[in-house]
């Protein structure tokens, strides 16, 4: 397909060039029409790939969620009813909510704190580099790191026992009990996801006019009040984007949870992203699996609204 696309594009050139000589005599409307037709291969290639590989499956999943398994035909909302009645999936929805709230507090809070505190600091860039680097790691690798730290015989329990904070005989089971396992993974995920928010907030800080901060300093506003009343209000737009991006990414998180806990034990640490995979591919229940995918999509798109609003504003 790609080759034919390129051929079409290359043959497009002489035709347009040839027509160009006759352009002057042609009406402006005819010119417009020809130019519009010339745009078809340019836009069409990307649109075709996205349409076939992403949009069509998306529409099919919505349709599939209204069908039963094994060719049992249209079942209306039955799959959704099954989904909301399944205790494991109820737990999964609670966990998904915990992920959304947790990522709002930790990566956003740490991102803002680190960006603001290091922005005017000597060696601040070095501190930022340490925080940003894990962002380039795969969720799979982050899970392996998390396993070193959080397993019951792991580094975190070693450190706590060494400091005398816990009894070495009864280490804390970070990954084995709900809701502790969900909280542990959310907290450790912040190690990776904070970096991107630091970068976004640094960009936001650069857009604040220097004069306003200097004026506040002259007025005698100290660090905290300067942040509270001058800096933070001007980071409102950035914060909306950061919150929107962080929550939607947290809702979509799959790799790290899958490799660290496989959603277990007893499906206790699953989120909807994992539940969909387990239900569809491991339990071979595409009917409910599709319903989970649709519910997840609705939640993600609703949360995306936080930062989409701005983009839509720019488009119109």
């Amino acid at each position, binding site marked *: 397909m790609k080759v034919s696309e390129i051929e079409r*594009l290359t043959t497009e050139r002489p035709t347009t*060039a040839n027509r*160009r000589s006759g352009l002057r005599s042609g009406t402006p409307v005819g010119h*417009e029409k020809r*130019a*519009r037709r*010339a*745009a078809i291969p*340019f*836009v069409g290639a*990307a*649109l075709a*790939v996205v349409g076939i*590989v*992403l949009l069509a*499956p*998306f529409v099919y*999943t919505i349709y*599939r969620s209204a069908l039963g398994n094994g060719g049992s035909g249209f079942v209306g909302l039955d799959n959704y009813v099954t989904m909301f009645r399944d205790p494991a999936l109820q737990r999964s929805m609670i966990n998904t909510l915990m992920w959304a709230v947790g990522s709002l507090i930790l990566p956003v809070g740490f991102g803002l*704190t680190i960006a603001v505190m*290091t922005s005017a*600091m000597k060696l601040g860039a*070095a*501190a930022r580099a*340490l*925080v940003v*680097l894990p*962002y*380039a*790691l*795969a*969720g*799979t*690798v982050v*899970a*392996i*790191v998390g396993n070193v730290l959080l397993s019951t015989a*792991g*580094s975190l329990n*070693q450190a706590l026992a060494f400091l005398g904070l816990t009894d070495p005989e009864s280490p804390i089971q970070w990954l084995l009990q709900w809701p502790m396992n969900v909280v542990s993974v959310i907290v450790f995920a912040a190690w990776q996801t904070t970096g991107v928010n630091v*970068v*976004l907030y640094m960009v936001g800080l650069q857009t604040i006019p220097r004069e306003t901060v200097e004026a506040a300093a002259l007025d005698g506003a*100290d*660090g905290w009040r300067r942040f509270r009343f001058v800096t933070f209000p001007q980071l409102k737009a*950035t914060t909306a*984007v950061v919150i929107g*991006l962080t929550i939607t990414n947290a*809702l*979509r998180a*799959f790799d790290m949870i*899958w*490799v660290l806990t496989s959603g277990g034990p007893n499906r206790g640490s699953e989120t909807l*992203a994992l539940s969909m*995979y387990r239900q569809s*591919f491991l339990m071979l229940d595409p009917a409910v699996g599709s319903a989970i*995918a649709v519910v*997840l999509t609705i939640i*993600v798109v609703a949360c995306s609204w936080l930062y989409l609003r701005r983009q839509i504003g720019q*488009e*119109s």
Partner: protein
Amino acid sequence: MNQLRLGILARNTIVIVLALLWAVPTYLVVVNAMTPVASYTGSPVWWPSGFALFDNLAVGWEAGSFTAPFLNSLLYATLGAGIAVVLASLAAFGLVIMPTKHKRLWFWLIYAGTLLPLQVFALPLYQAGVATELYDTKMILIIVYVALCIPFGFFVTRNFMVTLPPEISQAAKIDGAGWWQMFVSIYLPLIRPAMVAAFVFQFIFIWNELFFGISLTISVENQPVMAAVATMQTQGSALSQPAILATALVVSLPAVLVFLFFQRFFVAGLTTKI
């Protein structure tokens, strides 16, 4: 004045504590990855006790047959990100520079893919893959990664093109350049920074991707590298922790190096999201 100094002291302390906190996991991975298996007791160590990084790597690499997955991911990341960025720039050119109708509709149709969770595409793609015998081939992952990377690549190149002065295309038109010629010889060099940003971003995304790797492929010859890492971690109980860590460390290097080397571009790509 004293209060100000106290404030700065508090700030510096917080930053140092946070920076150390962030460095600990990386430090532990490096130390444990180079610990000789002989001196590894089954739980993580805090201090180095020898240097066996390459021995551990050899063990892990061999056990997980990493050569094929590693090369696969190089192929997927390079081709997937490369083709996607070219198609995305063509679409951006078509919608920004060329006169087209329904610009907003086309924009949202191409861009919408980036808003949806991957799970909503997975089942139909799996079924289509089985039906077309593309399941568990390199081709299906290349196609899917290209499609996944187009929306954001389109967004970045489009936003960049919007900022270019319209006089450029007017001047090219007067010179009698065709659209294709105009794209290749005038716009392609101009938007190169945006294309590099999008490429770097998507290269790292594909290199680190696991979900489609395990949903659409199953054999070692076709799986991407993170699928092999996940298998090693979840099923390779026979492997010692140092071997797993050494391998995970090395397979992370391509994405980390690309990230460090092109950090400037990466940040540029990221901030177009604002």
